[in-house]
């Protein structure tokens, strides 16, 4: 396997607090990699640095073997790296179809074309169908439940035909049925060749879904390995139990 996403020696401080300190991690192509750790260990900060939402104080990022000099969300998305957020972020005033079509890459000269073209709509409905949301295609995204918003956000990032998707707590705050739906989608997309990096608190989901598992604590990686090994590692147990 080859490294699809690689972060080396990332450092990020917020005032006097070190969110990340010399943090390095690699996401191999074709894996579902988990990024776990106690609250405040720096998981979401890693996401924010890697996707360009925050500038790193130090460190380098490579995607697809190419160095990413100044990570910028839109450019990374076009390169095939997309993410979701812990609190699902959708365009609440737009319909579900518009949410998905907004995420389709458009050339600059397309500004005057119809907002939702026939092909755009067909493609959006196809994706919504896969997520069981086609019935709500023309509803406002702001009217969706939290779980439905999570699904819509997940569906949106797929419109850019990504190579790797970073999911920030995809199952938090959703009911067990929705967790199962989310897991199924991740498995299906993984089987089609998509790579995932997932921040997740639900260890059952991590153990069922992910391999390898990377553990962060106090802004640094403390362990990486298969889930059953990580689960029994004394350093990991120590970090979680705070011994």
């Amino acid at each position: 396997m080859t490294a699809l996403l690689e972060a080396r020696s990332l450092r990020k401080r917020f005032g006097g607090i070190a969110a990340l300190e010399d943090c390095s991690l690699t996401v191999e192509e074709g894996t579902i990699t988990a990024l776990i750790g106690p609250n405040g260990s720096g998981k979401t900060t890693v996401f924010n640095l890697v996707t360009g939402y925050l500038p790193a104080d130090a460190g380098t990022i490579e995607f697809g073997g190419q160095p990413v000099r100044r990570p910028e969300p839109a450019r990374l998305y076009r390169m095939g790296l997309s993410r979701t957020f812990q609190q699902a972020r959708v365009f609440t005033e737009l319909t579900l179809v518009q949410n998905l079509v907004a995420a389709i890459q458009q050339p600059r000269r397309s500004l005057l074309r119809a907002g939702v073209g026939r092909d755009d709509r067909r493609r959006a409905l196809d994706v919504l169908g896969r997520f069981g949301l086609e019935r709500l295609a023309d509803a406002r995204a702001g009217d969706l439940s939290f779980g439905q918003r999570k699904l819509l956000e997940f569906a949106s990032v797929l419109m850019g035909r990504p190579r790797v998707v970073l999911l920030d707590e995809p199952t938090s705050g959703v009911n067990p049925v929705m967790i199962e739906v989310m897991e199924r989608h991740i498995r299906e997309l993984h089987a089609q060749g998509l790579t995932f990096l997932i921040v997740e608190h639900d260890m059952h989901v991590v153990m069922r879904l992910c391999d390898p598992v990377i553990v962060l604590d106090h802004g640094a990686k403390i362990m990486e390995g298969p889930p059953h090994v990580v689960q029994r590692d004394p350093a990991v147990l120590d970090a979680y139990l705070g011994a």
Partner: protein
Amino acid sequence: MRRVTVAGAARGGVATAALVAFPFVFSTPYLMTIGLFTVMYMALATAWNLLGGFSGYLSLGHAAFFGIGAYAEAITFTHIGIGGGYRPFALLPVIGVGVALASVPIGVVALRVRAATFAIVTISMLFIVQQLAFNLHSLTNGAQGMSMPLPPFGVDTYERPFYFCMVAVFLASLLTCWATATGKLGLMLFAIRDDEDRARGLGVRTTYAKVVAFAVSAGLTAMAGGIWAYYEGFIYPQFAIDPLVTIGAVLMAFLGGRGTIWGPALGALILVPAQQYLAYSSQLYLVAYSAVFLAVMLVMPRGIIPSARDLIAARRSPRRRPGGEPASTPSGVAT
């Protein structure tokens, strides 16, 4: 699928017919002047809406472009000598395109900041332009102002050429708003308005979309300024680049419903004649004007059109369940 609905076409047709018929029905100079300024603010509010309504970037400095358009007319007349008659009108498309292009670098810089900071940056831009108009004596004649050619139009129908020209600018603004709202640019702007960071994360070319909207909006505003300058005959910096012009247009857009196609025009249609009427009927006209505005904003905080649309939708489906019922129309392309 960009479709012109029957209702939309009917609305457009009726509005155009009414605007064209107005000078023939109400021909007194007083009413024609009110008509002219009403249409001017309809154009300004609609042009402002392109950026402020669709993307959520509240520019409070659009009067700068209005003034630049006015000065462009006056400078062309004084320094180049284009002559009078209908010629200054022919210059308007050139002014519109020129100001739109000139506003691109301003937009690139100003649109790097958001929300209140953007509003402050645009106000600063307005005062910078006003100071330039005061101080570039060789070009603008400073505080002494600049004159335009005397229009050779008859006294009884003096306002008509200006009025029809303003109607053309308004319709151009309205069509631009419609094309934007139903096009890819509109979708990008609505995504930016909802959550700009998320839009960036989904590959939306946010800077590009905002700058295009800013430039087109500036160009249309400048064209209205050019007509105003010719109508007034003489322009001064403090009146050509007047913050109250922007504030008026913004209030009208808020009243009618910013982010909708017809809302800003509706707001202007209500506020400009009301302002004129109240000014003549009572010394407390500003209080009355404010009271009317406050009352509407308290009852309908999103503006008349979105509130009315919500009310109609609620009456049609009183028990709307979350995630279950489609919106009556996608709000981004509300009419």
